[in-house]
């Protein structure tokens, strides 16, 4: 197992920048990770510190139908310009995830852009979300507007800032104990 740690930079390291949104909508520890490809495409994933990934939780259900009238599963894009995709703002909900302990979490877009696809694989295999949260267990793919590709991430944290937030959190927890 020692050798694997010496591996070369991963696909994410090579082609993506990691951005973070912590305590989404003021909900403690509900951290999102946004992987932005050099071609501006963004993948929305759970950050490793998200409550769903803590305390050995299991997933009961994942629902992309965010309201009676709107389901992210109905999203269709066509052509090079991805016509027809739902346009999302940063607080647009993507899906709701219920765990077996009946805790429920909403995953948000975090960035403005056009929804290209959601990950239907996690509906069939919810464990993907727990096992590979930053790759095969992604939540959605979003394409920011060309003119906004540089600015959509301005309110997000860098990897360094995120690690800072998470480590402060754990010292606070320790202090409060």
């Amino acid at each position, binding site marked *: 197992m020692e*050798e*694997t740690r010496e*591996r*070369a930079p*991963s*696909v994410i390291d090579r*082609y993506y920048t990691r951005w973070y949104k912590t305590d989404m909508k003021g909900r403690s520890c509900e951290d999102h990770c946004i992987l932005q*490809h050099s*071609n*501006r*495409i963004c*993948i929305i994933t759970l950050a490793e510190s998200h409550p769903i990934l803590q305390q050995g939780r299991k997933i009961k259900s994942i629902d992309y139908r965010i309201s009676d009238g709107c389901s992210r599963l109905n999203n269709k*894009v*066509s*052509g*090079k310009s*991805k016509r027809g995709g739902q346009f999302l703002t940063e607080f647009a909900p993507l899906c709701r995830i219920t765990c077996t302990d009946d805790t429920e979490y909403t995953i948000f877009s975090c960035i403005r852009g056009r929804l*290209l*696809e959601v*990950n239907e*694989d996690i509906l069939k295999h919810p464990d*993907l979300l727990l096992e*590979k949260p930053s*790759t*095969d267990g*992604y939540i959605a*793919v979003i*394409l920011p507007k060309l003119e906004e590709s540089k600015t959509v991430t301005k309110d997000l944290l860098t990897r360094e800032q995120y690690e800072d937030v998470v480590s402060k959190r754990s010292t606070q927890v320790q202090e409060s104990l």
Partner: protein
Amino acid sequence: MKPSRGFAGPEQKSISPSVMLSLKDKDCPVIRKLLASGCCGRCVLRFCCVGKYSAYQQSCEDLRKELLVFLSEHDGEQSHDASGEAEAGDPPCKKVKLESSEPSSGENASVEGESEPSGVCVACVGVLQDFCGQTYAKQVSEAVRKGDYQFESLMLAVSLPAQLSVREHSCWLHIKKEVREKSMYLDKEDVVQVKDAFKWAVQGLVGKELGATVLTNSAFEVSVGFVHPETDGDCHFLATECPDCFKPTKNKASVFTRMAVVKALEKISESKFLRHYPCPPVSPSSTCTPLQTTCLHTSVFIAGRYNKFSRELPQTPWVIDGERRMEGSVEELIADPLLAAFKADGFNFCSSGREDVDVRTLGNGRPFAIELLNPHRAKFNKAEIRQLQETINTASDKIRVRDLQIVTREATSRMKVGEEEKTKSYSALIWTQKPITSADLDFLENIKELKIDQKTPLRVLHRRPLAVRQRLIHSMSASYLDTHHFTLQLRTQAGTYIKEFVHGDFGRTKPNLGALMETEADILELDVESVDVDWPPAVPE
């Protein structure tokens, strides 16, 4: 339908204008009416449907004189009707009967009086009067020489002001009756076009001046053109009468294109036309202005195969936000020496697929074709092409070119035919999270004709439609390197995204190598080993 005159008596010693110009008796009323309206000699011949090139090659003054002689001879013939033979070389001094403008006012309306230099022609606004001679031919030739082209033949292209079609229509209506009397089979389409008359008169002179054959179809095109701002307004009434013919388009400066005007003239009724436009047309006060002569050589296509030995060389220039990302590119390394040799204005590069910047292309290489735009030199023999290939290959060790050859435009399409069905072979350096066993490698070698579903890779999704494409991995073989690395040889259907097949692209390629081997897999290096497209043909060394 070349008019010929069978009755030109063998006794005639000098060639009469009727033979020179291929005119018939029944042309007389047409000639009279057009001369009186202010048409130049060449335009008169055109409306007489004279298709004899040489007739247009005399000077405008001589032509006019001959027409007048012909008219007077004709009058003579009619008076000698009983004798049945014209007395050539003895033109009786007869007045020219001009029907409209000079109604037989004076008995002395003589031939000489009529051959005085007339005004600008009402039909061609001077194109066939002032620009069919040696002077203009020299001017055009000089412009061509300045272009510094190498050519053996040329074709002449002429662009004329659109309003000439309006004037042509007006002239036609003016003499329609007389032409139909000449032959009921003649129609407006039989009138020789200004463009053709111009070419017949001048292209031989240009060809001679430049020492080139003039053809109707040549790779080298010399374009001349004329404008006549004074009469641009001639077309405008058509826009109100036939608005649907003049819809504004993005790239046209004016809606009054020649095609639109011709279409409108086909639609408009005779009475409506005559209500808006004089018949015959009014004589312009100035002659037309020639446009700059331009030259264009059709593209030359060069094909070959290239190897790319560098992992830091993009196939085409890599520009992000207007900024160059890497130095050089395959297409530039190949095209630059070709551009210089062919003295071309630019190029278009095209290949059978493409590889990523960090991918090498080995083996026989990847077929490519380059279109060289407006080459000033187009003829190269095999030895010269071989020399060019050598120049490309010695200039850089990042690429190598073989089978370089001149091909036709049509042949280049063979590079793209069946591109999807072709097989490509790759060699990839693979990393796996779990330690590799020989059983893993055997397992891979036993997989044949594996169907995979690839969603458009995220790395190209910003510029390609989202779709799921089924591709075939024909076969794989693996050679062990160390615990976590092995080399994978793949034979796949063209269009398979190899990198995504290995790392899975967030699970978007199914199955992928990682899933097959039940581990995380990544691709560290990729080489294209062969592109199985059998074009272009091999060039023996």
